C-alpha cells in the first residue's frame, strides 16, 4: 500500500487506483501489416523491470482519468507522475 498523487485530484490511497501495466506501448499503425511475431510482441511481451519502470495508472475510484507513473518496482517508490500525452521525464530513461 502506498499513496499516489493523482494529477487531477491530489494525494489518495493506492487502493483507489488501478494499475494499467507498462506505458508507452504504441498501438500498431497498420495492424494488417503485422506478422504473428510482431503481434505477440505488442500484445504479450513485457519489460517487467525490477527497478525504475514506466507505467499507466487510472484513478478508478476517483476521477477515472488515466495518467503515467515512473515507479521503482523494487521498493514501490514513485519517482514521477505525468499526464497522458506528456513527454516522459528523460532522467529515468
Amino acid at each position, binding site marked *: 500500500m502506498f499513496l499516489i498523487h493523482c494529477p487531477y485530484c491530489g494525494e489518495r490511497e493506492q*487502493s483507489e487506483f488501478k494499475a494499467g501495466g507498462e506505458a508507452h506501448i504504441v498501438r500498431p499503425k497498420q495492424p494488417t501489416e503485422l506478422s504473428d511475431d510482431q503481434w505477440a510482441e505488442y500484445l504479450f511481451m*513485457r519489460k517487467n523491470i*525490477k527497478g525504475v519502470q514506466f507505467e499507466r495508472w487510472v484513478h478508478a475510484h476517483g476521477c477515472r482519468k488515466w495518467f503515467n507513473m515512473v515507479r521503482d518496482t*523494487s521498493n*514501490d517508490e514513485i519517482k514521477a507522475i505525468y499526464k497522458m500525452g506528456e513527454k516522459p521525464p528523460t532522467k529515468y530513461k
Partner: protein
Amino acid sequence: MKNKYSIISLIKNSFSYHENWQKAWGDPEPKKEYDIVIIGGGGHGLATAYYLAKKHDMKNIAVVEKGWIGGGNTGRNTTIIRSNYLWDASAGLYDHALKIWENLSQELNYNVMFSQRGVMNLAHNLQDVRDLKRRTHANRLNGIDAVYLNTEQVKKFCPIINTSPDIRYPVLGGTLQRRAGTARHDAVAWGYARGADEMGVDIIQNCEVKGIKRSGNNLDGIETTKGFIKTKKIGVVAAGHSSVIANMAGLRLPLESKPLQALVSEPVKPIIDTVVMSNAVHAYVSQSDKGELVIGAGTDDYVSYSQKGSHDIVEGTLNAILELYPIFSRMRMLRQWGGIVDICPDASPIISKTPIKGLYFNCGWGTGGFKATPGSGDLFAHTIANDEPHKLNAAFNLNRFVSGDLVDEHGAAAVAH
C-alpha cells in the same frame, strides 16, 4: 551416500542427542564449468536437477540460488495441491505432478507430509455453479477424480462453513477433489536438495546470477557473485525474477511479476480438516499440522518485486473468510508475507526451449506453482535433457504467444489457484 532416514536411524541418533545427523546437502564452491546450470534453488529448480541426475543420467550439474534454497516462493505459498484444471493440457500437467506427489516421500526418503485431505472449491453465483459443474465433467473425462456437491453436502463435508442463504455471497455448491490436499513446502525443497546432492549435484547458495554470456546463439556461461561459471546449458527456474534473467540473455517474456500474499493465524486445535477455496470472494483456508490457519489472499494488480503486498488485499480476504467462517471472528493473525509471482497472460506456465540454443525457461507459474513442483521438475528435466519437450509440456511452450494457441486457465480453472 546418504544415510537412510528411518525409525532405526531416529532411535540411533537419539543416543547422541540428535547432534550427529549427517548433513542433508553440502555447501560447495562453484566449479569452473558445468554441463548444466539451473538458475533458482526453489522446489522446481531442485526437482529439475534431481530428475536430470536420476532419470537422465546427467552428471556435472549445478543449482545456483541467490538466497538460500526454498527461501523464495517455495516457502511462501499456501501449500495447496490439486489437479482439477479444466483444459486437457493443464489436467495432464497437474495430474502428472499429483501422481508423483502420491509417492514422493518414499521416493525421496524424506517426509514431505503430503496429506490428501481434499480440496473443495465453492460456488457463490449461478455462473460459478455452471463453471464448476462443467469443470467436474471435464475432470472426469480426463480421469481426474471430481464430484459436485450441493449446499447441504458442502455443509456436511465442512461443517464450519456458513451456508446460510442470507450472506452476501451464499454458498450454492462446490466441487471436491479428494486426492488433492497439502504438503509441507520446506520439506519438498529439502527433500529434493538432499536427493540431488546425493547424486552429485552442486547446490550453490548465496550465489546471484549477474549476467548471461553468449556468443551469437550459443551460451558461454553465467556471471555470478561467486565468479564466472562456464556452461553450455542453462535452465532458468527463477519465478518472479524470470524476466530479470531473461533480460540478461536478451530475451523477452510475456510475464508480469506481482506480489501475492498469504497469512497464518495463531495455532489452534484442529478445526478444519480439508482445504476450502473460493474464487468469487477470493479466500482460501486450510489448517497446518501446527494448528495455524493458512490463508491465501490475492495478488496486487501492479508490478512489484518488493515482497510486500497492499493491506487492502488482506483486508478483503479476511472479510470474506469471516463471512464464510463466523467461528474465526476472534482468531488473531500471527504472520503475513508476500511472494513475487510471475504471471502469464493465460495463467498457464511456460516450460520451454527458447530461441537461444541451450537456454530453457520454466516460469509463469503465477499464483499456483507449488502444486506442480514434482511434475514441473520432471518435465523440465526431460525438456533440457532431450532438447525437446515431453508430450505433457509441449503445449506450454513460449511460442504459444505467437501462434495464439493459449492455455487459458484464468477463468477456466474457476479457482484462485
